[in-house]
């Protein structure tokens, strides 16, 4: 079945709407996510700990369930779009199955296709993710505006790109083989980082301004939390970032100032995989290989 003609101009997917993450110590991690990072903890289903970052009902959840507790939620325009996506993914031999009513309930969505990308990252394609009528009320003044997007580890970036392109995402720029993927007016919502393993690399939350990036940077230093990179600024997207690592290697990021892609189509630009492309201020990744450049290509020869 093809999509109804009236929907031809609408995108298949519209947002990255949640991150579900499995950790060994959800309570310790929850302390980091709320008290340190600044998300609002709210009641969760079953054993899941849930958090808000904006007017969405949930954007982060933590559980011990390594099998079904990890996935990235991608909001799909409607059920017709969901069907198109299902057909496209199956035609290219991606694993896709409809979410059961219980799985949809746990994800606070109306309907879902549960898919695996080429690396085995679980991607939930969902419709009507729940919104909240109450405004977001954070536990501390971190200046979080909204959940913005994710960085994903990719073990098979050719196949993963095929996956995301089938959903309508476009590569806006490359840094080496790191691909920035756009699904709306922003430079990217999803970034694929070549890696030896799959999984979430970071979940990024937009803050109001540079002020909050810097305030959070000093807050982390004062609290002896681990900043794995930043404050820094991506050369391709102009986005200012601060990557902070919590328990179990969970990296949450504050971001601000991402470029919009504009109306004129342009080919994806290639940046070399070096420190300057990843951060034009000069920050370097500490022990997160995906965020860093090989040691041989440093700033001085950029």
């Amino acid at each position, binding site marked *: 079945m093809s999509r109804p003609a009236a929907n031809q101009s609408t995108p298949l997917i519209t947002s990255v709407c949640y991150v579900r993450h499995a950790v060994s110590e959800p309570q310790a991690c929850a302390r980091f996510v709320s008290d340190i990072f600044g998300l609002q903890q709210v009641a969760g289903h079953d054993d899941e700990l849930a958090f808000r970052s904006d007017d969405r009902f949930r954007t982060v959840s933590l559980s011990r369930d390594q099998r079904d507790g990890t996935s990235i939620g991608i909001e799909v325009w409607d059920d017709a779009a969901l069907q198109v996506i299902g057909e496209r993914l199956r035609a290219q031999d991606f694993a896709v199955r409809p979410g059961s009513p219980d799985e949809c309930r746990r994800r606070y969505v109306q309907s879902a296709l549960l898919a695996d990308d080429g690396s085995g990252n679980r991607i939930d394609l969902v419709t009507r993710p729940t919104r909240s009528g109450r405004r977001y009320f954070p536990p501390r003044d971190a200046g979080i505006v909204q959940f913005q997007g994710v960085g994903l580890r990719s073990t098979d970036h050719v196949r993963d790109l095929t996956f995301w392109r089938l959903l309508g995402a476009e590569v806006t720029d490359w840094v080496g083989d790191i691909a920035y993927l756009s699904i709306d007016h922003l430079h990217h919502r999803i970034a694929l980082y070549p890696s030896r393993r799959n999984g979430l690399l970071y979940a990024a939350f937009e803050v109001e301004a*540079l*002020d909050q990036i*810097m305030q959070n940077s*000093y807050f982390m230093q004062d609290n002896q939390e681990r900043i794995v990179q930043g*404050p820094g*600024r991506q050369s391709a997207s102009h986005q200012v970032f601060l990557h902070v690592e919590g328990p179990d290697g969970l990296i949450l990021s504050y971001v601000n100032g991402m470029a919009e892609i504009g109306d004129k189509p342009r080919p994806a630009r290639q940046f070399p995989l070096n420190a300057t492309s990843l951060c*034009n*201020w*000069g*920050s370097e990744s500490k022990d997160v290989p995906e965020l860093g450049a090989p040691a041989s290509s440093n700033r001085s020869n950029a």
Partner: protein
Amino acid sequence: MIQLKDVSYVRLGSPDLEQAEHFATACLGLQVAGRGGKALYLRSDERAHTLCYSEGDPRDQTVGFEVEDEASLQDAAATLESLGHPVHAGTAQEAEQRKVKAFIGFRDPTGNHIELVVRAERSGRRYFASRDAGITGFSHIGLNSTDPARDERFWTQVCNARVSDRIGEIPLMRVNAIHHTIALVRAPQSGIQHINHQVDSNDDVLRSYYFLNERRVPIVFGPGRHPTSGARFLYFKGPDGMIFEYSVGVDEVEDEATHRPRQFGFEPTSFCMWGSKPAGMTLPNK
């Protein structure tokens, strides 16, 4: 009243001009305008020079302010002398060394060397930086004061400075629309507490932070943001212990007639709203 138009230059003594030049070009990013007579002239904007190192005692520190014309200079000299400040009329040779038409020298109540100058030279060639620090120009100084209330009276009553904001008893004073050109800093002796250059963007402040860190230049405060002027800043230490500042986004006072100085408490958040803390740099003592 002595009408100061703008800050014009800083002159610093240094026992090691070679080291001063290395820092000024490789770290700070100024342009060498010339070397001569045991002096090093540096540019930061359209002016022929804004910083001069001369071979000598690093305690020899002078700040120059521009006044309108030679008549104003004569009036200023008379005013200062009537108040008991001995005035030195600059010789032609001294004026040439300063790249100005004429000047007078005196000491403020704390004992800081101040010069008033007329017709400071501009350069026909645009400023071309020695490194890409994004400097747009020399902008203000922090000036030591042994008695901030007394010195505030001097700068605002004998001269035309106006207080834009205060942190504790420390006044940030303007002589034009820019939030401050003179920041008084309580100290046991006279001297220049810091020298500010404006840069083009936030990016320049943060880039310089990483750049100077890598070169092991001591960062003494920042990157941060002053809640008073709104400027994003970075303070770091140069030769002879002199502190230099990069900043961007200093507010302008929009309505001269209605602006009232705001009072900020004497506490760390009044100096930095981001949470940076000074290290190796004394904030004005209460």
